[in-house]
């Protein structure tokens, strides 16, 4: 059963098309990273998937059926903004979740609280931003969901906690859980995701396996005698690009795999704007 399938999803806010004909299918046990600029439509797409906003058109199915309240027992969601009640303590949040989710695992929650260094009896208001986010993540993991949707999960976490979060994502995916997470931080996606989707102006402009991208996408550079550097992105057949550049009689031609960041910039066509 495919945990998440999106068919031709559109979401319009007035004149603005936030999500434009998005189709996506995410297999079980996959860590899927959704990358895009601010306002690209990542959060709107996630909100549509979870029924937090109504779709303009298109269909979403979770575990093979349309979203129903009972489906949420199999899904965990951590929003970009921390929406947990700040006047409650982590222990009270745990009790709240335990009563709501049938598979909530207190033992796992205890382990995660230790891993994320969460103080259980202080109200969230007295915790740092990073710790509040860690509480939200630990609660989501402890629901033992089959599908976890994380919207900018690492925002507010310090580098150590970010590392622990990414490790946690990878290890739960190894247990068969499906993770969909959006991020601005391409490095995080590169570290944790097996498959990525790049969303730009509401459209899914690229969907691919991270390993395949590394194998197929190259930067080919030609250096000329006067010191000029000519750089081209090669998608698939880099030999053709090399050939073309050699015809210009450079001093040297080199090829190296693109980083995910370079793939992102080349895909959304913003390399000049970003100095890439």
């Amino acid at each position, binding site marked *: 059963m495919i945990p998440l399938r999106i068919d031709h999803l559109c979401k319009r*806010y007035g004149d603005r098309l936030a999500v434009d004909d998005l189709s996506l299918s995410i297999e079980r046990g996959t860590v899927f990273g959704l990358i895009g600029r601010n306002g690209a439509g990542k*959060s*709107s797409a996630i*909100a549509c998937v*979870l*029924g*937090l*906003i*109504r779709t303009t058109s298109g269909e979403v199915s979770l575990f093979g059926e349309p979203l129903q*309240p*009972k*489906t*949420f*027992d199999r*899904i965990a*969601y951590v*929003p*970009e*903004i921390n*929406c*947990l*009640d700040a*006047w*409650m303590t982590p222990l*009270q949040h745990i*009790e*709240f979740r335990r*009563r*709501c*989710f*049938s598979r909530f695992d207190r033992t796992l929650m205890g382990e995660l609280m230790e891993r994320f260094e969460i103080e259980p009896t202080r109200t969230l208001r007295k915790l740092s931003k990073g710790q509040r986010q860690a509480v939200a993540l630990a609660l989501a993991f402890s629901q033992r969901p089959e599908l976890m949707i994380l919207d900018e999960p690492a925002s507010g976490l310090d580098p150590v906690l970010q590392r622990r979060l990414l490790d946690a994502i990878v290890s739960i995916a190894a247990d068969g859980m499906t993770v969909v997470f959006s991020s601005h931080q391409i490095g995080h996606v590169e570290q944790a995701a097996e498959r990525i989707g790049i969303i730009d102006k509401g459209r899914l402009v690229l969907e691919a396996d991270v390993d395949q991208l590394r194998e197929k996408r190259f930067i080919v550079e030609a250096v000329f005698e006067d010191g000029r550097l000519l750089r081209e992105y090669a998608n698939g057949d880099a030999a053709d690009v090399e050939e073309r550049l050699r015809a210009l009689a450079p001093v040297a031609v080199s090829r190296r795999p693109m980083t995910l960041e370079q793939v992102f910039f080349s895909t959304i066509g913003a390399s000049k704007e970003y100095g890439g």
Partner: protein
Amino acid sequence: MTYREFLVMRKALLWFIGCTTGLMLLMVIVQFSQYRGGNLSTDLNELHVPVAWVVTIFAAIFGVALGNASREPARVFWVLPSERWKLALQIVAVDAAGIVVAYAGVLAAAVAFFLLAGLFEPANLRGSIDWAGVARSLVFVYAVYGWSALVGILGRRVAYCGLASLPFLLLWTMFSNVRGAFGELVRLPILVNPFSVYAMGFTLSHPATDLDKPMAHSLLRLAVAGGWETPILLATALLTCAIAVVLWQRAEVLSA
């Protein structure tokens, strides 16, 4: 959801009853320090009325719960494995129970005030608590809660918007007594204003009522028998809460 609402309510009740009791104690102290003879006289039979007015503030504050819960926290609440309307009803149910406790707390504090004041000066407590009046007052407070919930969900883009319903209803009651075309106009839907219905219901049953007042005159037509206002208040409470729940269920999460 019930657990979280219970936590909120427990905290709020402690504050509210604590503040009310503190205020009563302050009044006892003032009463004692200002004592110049005479005696303190009250009719317990009518005590449910001022208590209801005080508790409307509590109800209006709690009425905002639905509206506020449909803002950012909706991202947590609307992904719970339960029907949205059930979640909304859990909030309303806990608030309803909380309002009863708040009412009982203020009523107890008011009685305690007169008993304590009696330690310092002659206090004349007449009659006994009118339980039918208490029930009517509670329905009135629920109607105020319903209005707050409805305004809160309609204006949910503004946090705590439901609180605006309280001054709105009071102003509406005030303008309902204006003579002329404007007064006539605002009196047309006056039955859905719990303050007008409750105040007039109480006033009409009072022997010294000036029945020439425009609003009293309008409502007198409906006052066929005693207790007419309770069903109207109950209908207002149920209707406003029902609309608020339906709107909550259909709402979309607000974008950040």
